[in-house]
């Protein structure tokens, strides 16, 4: 079991013990336990540990439930030595009468045991004690990747006195005092204590709200004390660092001399300084150094059934124009394929393993399924700069896949998607762990062109196979056709090859801002055209393309 699986299991099992498991988490736990005997062993260790912590019967052995009294009570008024003649209800009532007494005795005994094993006597009352409330948590990430280790899950703990090297993306850390630090790659940071972090290299934006005054950031040679502010710090390779105070106050001092040798310098709003130990020089203030939030992105998603075959999207979390939205899948605007053209040697169709290849129409009509779709569409290195050639639709656009015209995949939304601020469309792709973690690059273009429109190339997805929370999809089978036909329902006759990959695929996702394609805010968009970016041997495997509804305050996540 790798470290990340173990951490994930610990988190899920802890939630199970405290009865906090969501439906999706139960599904995930089912999957992990079904998947690997090692996971099951770990589960059993964990639960056995908890059974002892929660045991009403306690230790040592011998001081246990008085079964004799119980059985005597159960057997009365007669004990034939065989099956009692009373009803189950009566029996249960008798047990219910017995249970509190036994548990009370046992619990008292357990308390004594706990105190005995303690190093010293502890109080018997609940005490107000926040000494242990020291956890620093990862609260969000965007394309973040750590050197040589997986990112903790969102909400997971960041360990103290341990160096974290962020090699790509951004992440947000939350401290017990309420301070939030956004770390940008490449960076090396270490949490020293609940009120202090060290930025050994790289860039960090810090927000210290009321209650977090006094939070410290150490660079290799300087200390910055936040007095309630928003500031950014950028530590260069040579030890130089730059501080930009966007709001509030901060004090900067040197770490390279004797304590108190130098007086801290106070910086206020719009002050900026280059620091190298006691050498401190004012520089021009740049407000854009400070990052107030992570960029718009697909934050996460949940599915109805992550196991077996069909994996159906149930919810989507996305940041649009700085606001976080949570959508139920049925609020999203579905799409259908109207054009598909691809090289003939690739598998073209991805179906769930249990789908009926004799009825491709029904198999492809799966609603919100993450592991069904037309994959490996053709493409080119250069993106389109004009309308794609869509092959004739044979009179039934929804049911027709054409195999001439421009290489790529054309989709039409089931109702128009209106361009709003931030991301408007979400694309899911399936990717295995032996493929490019960032996702397969693709071009996205307008389906219908007008002046001012353009294509955009997506190189890196918001959620990659390295992102916490990406979900493995159910088993799939791939179909390759001998020749392309006009109508989907007749493709069976030319089916050349079916392949059921043994490896696991994960649903990764990225958002698309229609403004990037040149659309104006408020424009209604009927469809889009996608092409593989032809940047490597593998082609991209889109399975689900959804439009987002127009934003309204009611959708926003509290």
């Amino acid at each position, binding site marked *: 079991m790798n470290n990340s699986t173990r951490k994930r299991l610990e988190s899920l099992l802890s939630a199970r013990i*405290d009865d906090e498991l969501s439906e999706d988490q*139960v599904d995930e736990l089912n999957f992990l336990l079904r998947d690997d005997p090692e996971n099951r062993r770990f589960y059993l260790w964990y639960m056995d*540990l908890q059974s002892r912590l929660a045991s009403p019967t306690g230790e040592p052995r011998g001081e246990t439930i008085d*079964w004799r009294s119980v*059985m005597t009570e159960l057997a009365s008024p007669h004990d034939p*030595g065989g099956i009692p003649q009373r009803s189950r209800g009566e029996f249960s009532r008798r047990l219910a009468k017995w249970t509190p007494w036994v548990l009370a005795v046992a619990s008292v005994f357990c308390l004594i045991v706990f105190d005995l*094993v303690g190093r010293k006597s502890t109080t018997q009352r609940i005490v*107000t004690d926040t000494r242990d409330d020291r956890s620093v948590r990862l609260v969000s990430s965007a394309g973040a990747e750590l050197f040589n280790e997986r990112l903790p899950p969102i909400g997971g703990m960041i360990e103290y006195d341990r160096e974290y090297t962020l090699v790509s993306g951004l992440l947000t850390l939350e401290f017990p005092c309420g301070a939030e630090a956004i770390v940008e790659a490449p960076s090396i940071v270490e949490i020293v204590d609940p009120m202090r972090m060290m930025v050994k290299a790289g860039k960090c934006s810090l927000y210290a709200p009321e209650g977090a005054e006094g939070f410290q950031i150490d660079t290799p040679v300087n200390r910055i004390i936040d007095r309630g502010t928003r500031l950014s710090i950028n530590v260069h390779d040579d030890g130089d660092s730059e501080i930009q105070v966007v709001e509030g106050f901060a004090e900067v001092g040197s770490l390279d001399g004797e304590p108190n040798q130098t007086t801290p310098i106070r910086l206020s709003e719009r002050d900026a300084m280059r620091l190298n130990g006691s050498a401190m020089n004012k520089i021009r203030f740049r407000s854009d150094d400070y990052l107030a939030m992570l960029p718009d992105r697909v934050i996460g998603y949940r599915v109805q059934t992550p196991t077996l075959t069909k994996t159906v999207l149930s919810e989507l979390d996305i940041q649009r124009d700085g606001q976080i939205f949570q959508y139920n899948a049925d609020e999203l605007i579905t799409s259908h394929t109207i054009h598909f053209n691809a090289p003939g040697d690739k598998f073209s169709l991805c179906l769930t393993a249990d789908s009926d290849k004799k009825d491709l129409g029904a198999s492809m009509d799966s609603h919100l399924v993450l592991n069904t779709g037309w994959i490996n569409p053709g493409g080119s290195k250069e993106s389109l700069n004009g309308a794609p050639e869509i092959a004739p639709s044979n009179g039934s656009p929804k049911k027709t896949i054409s195999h001439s015209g421009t290489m790529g995949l054309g989709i039409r939304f089931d109702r128009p998607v209106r361009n709003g601020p931030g991301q408007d469309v979400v694309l899911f792709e399936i990717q295995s762990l032996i493929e490019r973690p960032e996702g397969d690059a693709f071009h996205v273009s307008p389906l219908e062109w007008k002046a001012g429109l353009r294509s955009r190339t997506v190189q890196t997805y918001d959620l990659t196979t390295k992102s916490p929370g990406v979900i493995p999809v159910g088993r799939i089978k791939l179909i390759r056709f001998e020749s392309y036909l006009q109508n989907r329902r007749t493709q069976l006759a030319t089916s050349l090859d079916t392949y059921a990959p043994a490896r696991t695929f994960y649903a990764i996702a990225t958002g698309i801002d229609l403004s990037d394609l040149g659309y104006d805010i408020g424009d209604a968009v009927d469809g889009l055209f996608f092409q593989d970016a032809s940047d490597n041997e593998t082609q991209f495997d889109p399975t689900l393309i959804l439009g987002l509804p127009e934003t309204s305050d009611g959708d926003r996540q509290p």
Partner: protein
Amino acid sequence: MLSSKSERLVELLSQHHDSLYRYIFSLVGNAHDARDVLQETSFALYEKWGQFDGSRPFLPWAYKFAYIHVLKWRAARAKQCPTLDADVIELLAVEREREESELTARLTVLERCLSQLPDGDRELVRDRYLRGVATDDLVDHRQTSRRTLFRDLQRVRHVLLNCIEHKLQQDPELA
């Protein structure tokens, strides 16, 4: 006065109740439900005691009844909230019987690890799981958030697991 056969059941339950409780707990995941299932299981054992073959070990026989009652519990619970699938519970039950001796060895080591817990952690575990203090009450009294509380409980278990593994690595004969 119990019959001699029932006396034997009392003796075996007294001897093995801890294993039976742990077995049930591992499949249902919380103390309250584990106690209920143990109660139902003891009823079934009493009912079927006449069928027990005294020449065979008691625990595997008792586990079968416990397993059936765990599945009944699961069926009832699944109507109210999501829980582990039945096939997963079956896999766990099979695995647990295989792992019985190792689990017991680990628990022996746990006693040493418990004694090394900081007072605050031990008190937290005691309040939550032995005294059964409600989560909201603990949150109020500790002036913390639910999330932090659960995270602290998870951290304590993490520390104990690591301690057990460390001790077993240091002294493999314990396993």
